[in-house]
């Protein structure tokens, strides 16, 4: 899988091959992201085809209680342990959900993340995979999402492109 990070200002794309899960290490280490030295700007923690959230949107998790709410949804099958291993003191979680879909074959993946600094909006880009018309698929109701960990800053705004025509916007 390939992720593209674009250096803000320079416009030069940086292409990073990711092994395991997607890490925005290239973005974080660039000179335009003024987060803590070596801090990742965003990393994909898990994907799931069954997140249980029925609408397209964003859900921000800063506390274990909030995480538990999201893990208590029916029709859900996600890697709970991987989410619980995230230290919410250091990273917050962002659920980017595609909403209910009628079949299998849907997924959401993190592509890139950028931010001028921790006081500026965090812009994430995701890509949605969906079955082409006429494709043979499982006939099970799915609710795909990707869960992204972002540094636990007071982001003024998080914008996510790729789910709908317009950015999804969240003010944590």
């Amino acid at each position: 899988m390939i992720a593209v990070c674009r250096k803000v200002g320079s416009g030069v794309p940086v292409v990073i091959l990711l092994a395991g899960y997607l890490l925005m290490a290239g973005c974080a280490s660039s000179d335009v992201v003024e987060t803590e030295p070596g801090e990742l700007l965003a990393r994909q923690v898990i994907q799931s085809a069954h997140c249980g959230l029925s609408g397209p949107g964003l859900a921000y998790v800063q506390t274990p209680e909030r995480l538990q709410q999201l893990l208590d949804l029916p029709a859900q099958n996600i890697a709970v342990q991987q989410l619980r291993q995230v230290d919410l003191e250091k990273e917050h979680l962002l659920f980017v959900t595609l909403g209910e879909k009628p079949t299998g074959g849907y997924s959401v993946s993190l592509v890139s993340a950028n931010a001028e600094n921790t006081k500026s909006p965090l812009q994430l880009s995701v890509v949605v995979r969906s079955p082409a018309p006429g494709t043979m698929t499982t006939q099970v109701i799915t609710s795909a999402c990707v869960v992204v960990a972002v540094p636990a800053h007071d982001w003024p705004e998080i914008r996510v492109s790729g789910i709908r025509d317009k950015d999804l916007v969240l003010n944590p």
Partner: protein
Amino acid sequence: MAYRTNRVASVLAISLTLGACGSSSPPDESGGGGSDVLLPPARIVVAGSIDIEANTRVDADTADGLILGRLPLTEPQLLPASFILAGYVSFKEDSRGTSSPFDDFPKDPEDHFRVPFEPGERLSLRTFSEDADGPLVTLTLRRLDGTELESQTTDPINKLLSASVSLPVTETPGDYIVVVSAGDFDPPPVRYVLSKTAGTQSLALNLDWPRHAFVPGRAIVAMAGHEGTRVSASSQVPGNAVRSLDHQHWLVAMPANRLSKQSVNEQDTLGWIDTLRQQPGVVSATPDYLVSAQGPLDEPLYPKQWHYDLINMPAAWQLAPGGGTGIKVAVLDTGLFKGASGWHPDVAANVVAPVPAGADFVSAEFDNDVPPGRDNDPRDPGNAAGNNVFHGTHVAGTVVASATNQLGGTGVAFGAELLPVRVLGEGGIGSSTDLIDAIRWVGASTPVKADIINLSLGGLPKIPALQSAIDDVVANGVIVVAAAGNQASSSPAYPAAAEGVFSVSAVDAGGSLASYSNFGSWIDLAAPGGDVRRDANLDGLADLVISASASLGPDGFEPDYTGLQGTSMAAPHVAGVFALMKSLKPDLNAGTLASWLAAGQLTTPVAGGRSDALGYGVIDSGKAILAAIENPSVTILSASPAAISLSSETRPFQTIELQVLGDQTNSLAINPAIASPAWLDVTLSSVPPFSITVALDEQALEPDVPVRTRLEVNYTTDSARVLEIPVVAELVTDESARNAGRHFVLLVYTEPNAQGQLEAAAQLSMTAINGTYQFGFRLDDGRQGASFADVPPGDYYLVAGTDLDNDGIICQSGEACAEYPVTGMREVITVDESTDLTGIRMATGYFRPTISAATPDVLPRPGFTGYKLKEPHSNDVVAPKTIGAER
């Protein structure tokens, strides 16, 4: 789908318009309710309804109501035995000191309630104030004659914001007066939540624990601090150690002096175990339970598998106790989960051995196993992208999961063999050519590799080569079952719509077509597929189909179980029933099944014979199995309906026909003694036509708490048999009486205003009608005369709530709140010309996701101050005090 949602929107628009027609005068808070906003005909872009959490009530004289001209109540407000109520008290009236004339608060120093109490029951109060310290609030419990029994006052300075009172055990059950009174303080307004739960939850909890058989005179005992020590060495334990089970647990025998009779009985044993538990040092003492379960009803997850009772599986299993032995079912799907110890343990014993070579048909371009491309291994490798529910394993579990391994749930044809065939690759996607080849591989040559093919897949157009393959296997005696698809469409979906395939639509636990299911003239029959939005069987769980799966554990994927919904889940129910039938009638083929289906021999009847939604109806496995028994030598009783669902509101009693299935020449004797709990009266009509009438004894039921039991009808025909009938019941007392107060429904900007508040861009207000609020927002497309309810294009949160203290902010603690899609997890919705978000369902109430009894001071969102109502322009205002109506 588009047709349905548009229709909902139209109905909502009409109802809202009608509701507004009579509201030229100030709205009546306690009357029939309705919307305050007149909506001229226009396209509604966001609409839906808001349900109210059970037992929710609202103080009848809150600030927003008093501002509208209502007077404080002079008589105590009547409340049920269980409730959660939000209210408002203020020692005096005043302005909040702003320039706005709309946020005054009125005087309402005391609220009085008349509440049914049992001795020992407790009522709790929690207060919320705009001021960090806030005023004192006193909670008092009085007799009807005014005699004070108990009172408690909050102490805000010391952060004690709660109070409670309980009825002394010396008092008699009956109605008592509860008073909430505000102390003199500036600023004085206080919001509060009052709650009480009647009795205990023991009925419901008890039903979660099935009665297991145990060894009389034996117990398993654990001692604290005596690891490794023989328990008989402890004089406190009246028993004789038989043997050590591990370093802490001992199997102990009851001493002879505990016997009430010559032989040990269960009651003596339970009494002895109770004694053991009271001994110092005894950590636990439990009966030595027998692992005696040998039938599908005894599997641990069976109580959650509502889908089997719905299709009368207990009757079918009486007639086909072998569970489809000797029949092979091919599940053409994503493959089968295989962990370190082999196939999923709930289906492992059923997998054909050896699996024929070539069972993985997934071509390289769709494949995600190693090496990519077709091979001999049908295991499901999981998804590279996205977590996996192991769809093929779930489907296979519904068909064949073991009924006797005390693991997970059960399958419809638990005795049948499973041929896992892999045709779907990464993400559950596959190619039609792989499917066609797999179908031919299974059944186009003799001997066939499987008798029945299940296809929980779809989305294909009509393909002649696919039809040809199906024709060939059907001609070879293979029965093909397929999922109708989840597009909520009547367009034929293949392979389900292909000739010769049994097309299965999906129903929920109430037997109604699931919201997502396809329908049309090409549907043959229906089966349970689940619906996450419903709990039609009142078991407290969403109506999902439970079956085998796998989940990610510390060492990779591990066998597990999960609930899913879809026509994918419906099809294997039918495939399983067909397998049971085939085991009893080996020459059963698609032609015979089709004729029986059309004759109504396989399904619960549908009005008119068939419908586009359910085809010839929901499969009734009891009838279907009987049809397959050509010369039945057995006779069984079957209950119709197979499961009983009672409600004091909609169905307080029900008569169940006991149909005699099988050999009608056998004699039949029904034991009239049918054990039932106190809340259920059972009457047996033991002469033909046999029936059972069950009726709720409402006096023995706790209000608004679902209860479950299982009736056992013992009878003798060709042999002694037991018919089990599951029962679920609820004393519903408040569905239409639920009221969370005047609600404002808002589309709020996702970015805060200059004051840091999330403010409404569009706004409706309404009172509850039959326990529900309905709303609809039109698109503000720039025309003249846009109203509060018109929303400009943009991104918003959809929220609703009350403003009990009339401060212009909803969703503060102590006020009702609902957020879309789930309270506490609001999501951004985008409104534009193409938006069609109708049919939204939300739930409102006073609970906050992050506020619990254990952590009452935890805020759901740091710094969150509620949602700001839309300020009216001055020229809109007729009278300042009618702000509630205006807003």
